[in-house]
């Protein structure tokens, strides 16, 4: 039988396709590390700019018109105050919603509505949450530009993230655990409190800490609420005005003097270190306590 295959042609084409594959693999790889390289470059620039400006005095001083004296103390403490509202409010709301949706809700229209609503809320720009907070908390409820008003606004902003993380954590608890608990005579609520929640807690906490770190870095809603940047005292209660780290950085970035860019860079390093610490705690919790069923 005659061989109909044109072997040289096949070889040539095959080679071309293999070369194409190799070249594109290289391009895809380059694209993947592109973002990481840019990130490394930008971060190293910021750290270089911060050197010499980031010291004990910077952490321990209030904002100032003179760049050499400016510090991030009120922003750092303000961000911690903010967390004191955001952490409990958003965690209780988020976990409660997740328990309801996963354990109690019947499959009906209203449940579907809540679920769709949560994913839609996650897509609402943060600045729009700022407008909500400005109207409802700052003006209607008369909370002013306080820690409480900002904390409640931020809680609503990160709520969808916490709900979704908590739902996933609850879903990962195997059904057998619940059934074993029922078999021992426990009621539904007892089962949720003593079996499901303890098992799901590490996953919930990991998701929640990641959400909190988003709240720490979020600037736009605070700007819209009118939270001041130039504050030379620390808040004494949740009804006092305050300022937060990202706001300080925003303020310094916008100043015309060259020196304030260094101050802003120092502020960014403090903010990023803070976020890295929070994320490490989340990873630690995940690795240490998460059980695989």
């Amino acid at each position, binding site marked *: 039988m005659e061989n109909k295959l044109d072997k040289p042609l096949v070889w040539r084409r095959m080679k071309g*396709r*293999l070369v194409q*594959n190799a070249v*594109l693999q290289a*391009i*895809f*790889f380059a*694209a*993947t*590390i*592109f*973002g*990481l390289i*840019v*990130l490394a470059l930008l971060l190293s620039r*910021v750290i270089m700019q911060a050197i010499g400006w980031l010291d004990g005095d910077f952490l321990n001083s209030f904002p100032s018109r003179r760049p050499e004296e400016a510090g991030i103390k009120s922003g750092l403490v303000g961000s911690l105050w903010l967390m004191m509202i955001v952490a409990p409010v958003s965690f209780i*709301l988020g976990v*409660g*919603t997740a328990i*309801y*949706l996963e354990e109690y809700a019947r499959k009906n229209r209203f449940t579907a*509505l*809540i679920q*769709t*609503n*949560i*994913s*839609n809320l996650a*897509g609402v*720009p*943060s*600045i*729009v949450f700022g*407008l*909500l907070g*400005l*109207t*409802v908390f700052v003006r209607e409820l008369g909370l002013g530009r306080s820690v409480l008003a900002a904390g409640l606004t931020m809680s609503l902003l990160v*709520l*969808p993230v916490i709900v979704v993380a908590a739902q996933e954590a609850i879903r990962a608890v195997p059904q057998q655990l619940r059934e074993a608990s029922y078999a021992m005579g426990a009621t539904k*609520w007892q089962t949720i409190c003593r079996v499901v929640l303890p098992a799901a807690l590490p996953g919930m906490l990991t998701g929640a800490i*990641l959400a909190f770190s*988003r709240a720490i*870095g*979020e*600037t*736009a809603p605070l*700007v*819209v*609420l009118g939270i001041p940047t130039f504050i030379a005292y620390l808040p004494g209660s949740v009804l006092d005005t305050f300022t937060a780290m*990202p706001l300080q*950085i*925003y303020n310094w*970035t916008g100043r015309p003097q060259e020196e304030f*860019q260094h101050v*802003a*860079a120092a502020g*960014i390093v403090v903010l990023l270190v803070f*976020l890295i610490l929070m*994320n490490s705690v989340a990873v630690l919790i995940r690795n240490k306590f998460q059980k695989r069923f």
Partner: protein
Amino acid sequence: MGVPTKKEQQFSVREMIVENQARQHWTKRMEKLAPKFLFTLAALSVLVMLGILFTLLFETIEFFRRVSIVEFVTSKEWLPWNEEHGSFGVAPLVTGTLLTTGIAMLLAVPIGLASAIYLSEYASERTRRIIKPALEVLAGIPTIVYGFFALTIVTPLLQKVIPDLEIFNALSPGLVMGIMIIPMIASLSEDAMSAVPNSIREGALALGATKFEVALKVVLPAAASGVIASFILGISRAVGETMIVAVAGGSSPEFTFDVTQSIQTLTAYIVQVTTGDAGYGTTIYYSIYAVGMTLFIFTLLMNILAQYISRRLREEY
């Protein structure tokens, strides 16, 4: 029966029954109260959405009492501070937003998609385990930090290449926003592509296809719904992004498509008004709600579209 415990010695049987009943009473009450309480918490999320909707709606209506809706939609001038020739045409803010979003997507779509293909089709399990968390770090950096990058590092660099570039421009924040969105597109697209079953890949490989041909002609079409949804979510994210454009984009609402010029986006306008001292009750104060409403409607439609596409066009295996 073993040795009686302390409790049994102290109580008679009758007392123990009574005590048990009292405890059960509490259990029963909790059993009834808990779902109601949790339902309230869950319903609150709906309330938040309604809250956003109504706040924006009421204040926007107040704005349209003062400024005609026709002017808002059709005028090409946004001059809220001009007392005599004040004009509220939202078009310049929309073009500013579209400009930065367009630049961001031109960078983020090809690179994000290429990363997704690499991670899902080429990378070993080990490489993936290193690169994915690193990309998540990129996504976790606060936007104000990206804004700082854009203004103090990227813009001066670009000015060396394009001497005409203004200090505030659309190009630099657009590019930085693109870098910010890469991990989002990469991760969502990778999820969609990883969900394509291996048997389909192996079928194509067995027919002699190269890995690239498998990725382009088999995996990508199968994962198209998820990939397109990730693009739409990326657009929605870019449209709502605030701090990068507020820091590096400038505050001159011009009806222009020139990327080297200073522009203003919808979000940056809201920032400008709220950092300034436009008094409560002025037309400018109400204008931020109309702008916010525009933003809200646009991002909501985008998100619903993304959900629709990923749900309806998904191929089930």
